[in-house]
């Protein structure tokens, strides 16, 4: 048997553990913390996490998402991806005329696929979408995958760090849309789910299905 060494926790304020908080005290605290409704900004103001069940096996979801070219299919507006001089870094256009740089960092064993992206430049990829794919059999006792997608509010969302790179003077900065990211991300996750479920159900190649453009 192992127990926590109390000395290791000494001097750390704010811990809520049953040795100091009995069930009644815990009950008071969690009751106060539980509201009926929550303001949008309180839930999605600093972190935007969305999730969905996708009826498609985890390894197929992983393989599809790990290809940055899949963005051409499930994203709303990332298009025309091509390689850059930097290995694994692609550049395309977002919202028709903004350069977007993008690469994926994935781990097959952990089933994680992170999208590292940025507008206008590819040296500092600060828009990071963290995706974790979980076998639904493990957590929901059903086939398929659970995809959990988190976006953290990097300070650059609030202030364009490279305004001189913007070629379209009237362009709204990507961070202006943060209050709508829950909805925007949800739409794209629904795209991802629809594409994967359709191809899995129909027995098609999972893709992304690409062709060369002039």
């Amino acid at each position, binding site marked *: 048997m192992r127990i926590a060494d109390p000395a290791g926790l000494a001097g750390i304020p704010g811990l809520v553990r049953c040795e100091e908080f009995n069930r009644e005290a815990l009950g008071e*605290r969690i009751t106060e913390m539980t509201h009926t409704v929550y303001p949008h900004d309180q839930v999605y103001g600093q972190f935007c996490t969305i999730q969905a069940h996708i009826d498609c096996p985890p390894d197929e979801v992983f393989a599809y998402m790990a290809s940055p070219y899949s963005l051409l299919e499930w994203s709303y507006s990332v298009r025309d991806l091509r390689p850059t001089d930097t290995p694994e870094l692609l550049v395309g256009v977002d919202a028709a005329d903004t350069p977007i740089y993008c690469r994926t960092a994935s781990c097959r064993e952990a089933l994680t696929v992170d999208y590292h992206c940025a507008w206008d430049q590819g040296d500092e990829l600060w828009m990071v979408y963290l995706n974790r794919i979980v076998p639904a059999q493990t957590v929901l006792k059903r086939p398929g995958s659970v995809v959990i997608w988190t976006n953290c509010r990097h300070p650059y969302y609030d202030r364009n760090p490279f305004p001189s790179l913007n070629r379209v003077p009237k362009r709204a900065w990507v961070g202006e849309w943060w209050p709508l990211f829950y909805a925007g991300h949800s739409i794209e996750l629904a795209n991802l789910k629809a594409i994967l479920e359709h191809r899995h159900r129909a027995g098609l190649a999972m893709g992304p299905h690409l062709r060369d453009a002039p």
Partner: protein
Amino acid sequence: MRTVSLIGVASYLPENVVTNEFFAPGAADRRGMFTAPTTRRHVRRDESAAEMIERASRRLIANLGLDTLRDIDIIFTNVTVPDQPFTGCGAEVAHRIGARPRWVVDLHNSGCVSFIYMMELARVMMTATDARGALLCNVQNAAGRVFSNAEVRLKSQAPVPGDGCGVGYLAPSNVSPILSVAQQCHGEYAGDMSVSAEDGRRYWEPGPSPISVAFSDERVASIISRGNRIVPEVVRAACDAAGARTRDIKLLITNQPNPIFLRNWREALELSREAHHDTFDRYGNLFGAAIPINLEDALAHDKLQPGDLLALGGFSHAGDYTAAAVVRWRAGAGLAST
């Protein structure tokens, strides 16, 4: 169909003011569902529900200039701990205030929303008959009768209840029309609250332990969650039925189990603190008497102007009944048909 109005309300609060020293040490520091009010009232041992109703009713009768023989055809009562186990107190109330009603209903269900429930029943009766008016009477007396016991007062929930009586008068009229009433019975929640004694006896059996009121422990999270949800739902339903939007509510009056539910309900309905009037810190959980008492208190604080939309709402026990009503306050010029 005759329009029925909520004409007025009045209240009576027992004189005995009880502070938190009366309860377990640390009662004043409790939070969450057992947040203690600063004060609450307790009924005296010999203070009957009928007497409390008489006191509140005499104020209402005087305020409205009612002729009790002519204007009160219907009496409804709801009493938390009845004066007698078999009989209701409505007949005694009628006698005390000098009324000779055609109908007396001692209503035992719908606890904390019984004022709204009685409003609806009285409204139905008055639209179907030529009845001239209904007196609705709510008494909460469990604080003094149950929670002041030497053992029970040491329980976590003992500081929360407070006693009081609220009465209301309804009549066919366009003065303050009841635009809608929504109510639901959730029978599946009926077993989640019970009156029990620690020695396991039934409440009618003699025994050493005092009786108390308890919620089933394993359902507490479920009760909190449903309480948070079902009251905004029923208020929305009443607003929909009235053709109103919740944001048009100028004053929301609910029962007041604890400050957490009050906060969550007004947040869910997107109402300001000012638009949701309560007396929890003074009077505690007034059970069914909360709605008429809080309404009278709100009127005394000028919370309603002529033409304002008033919403009443709440739930009873562990969620077995929910009800809400929408009233256009002082919409008309005078008593049209009383």
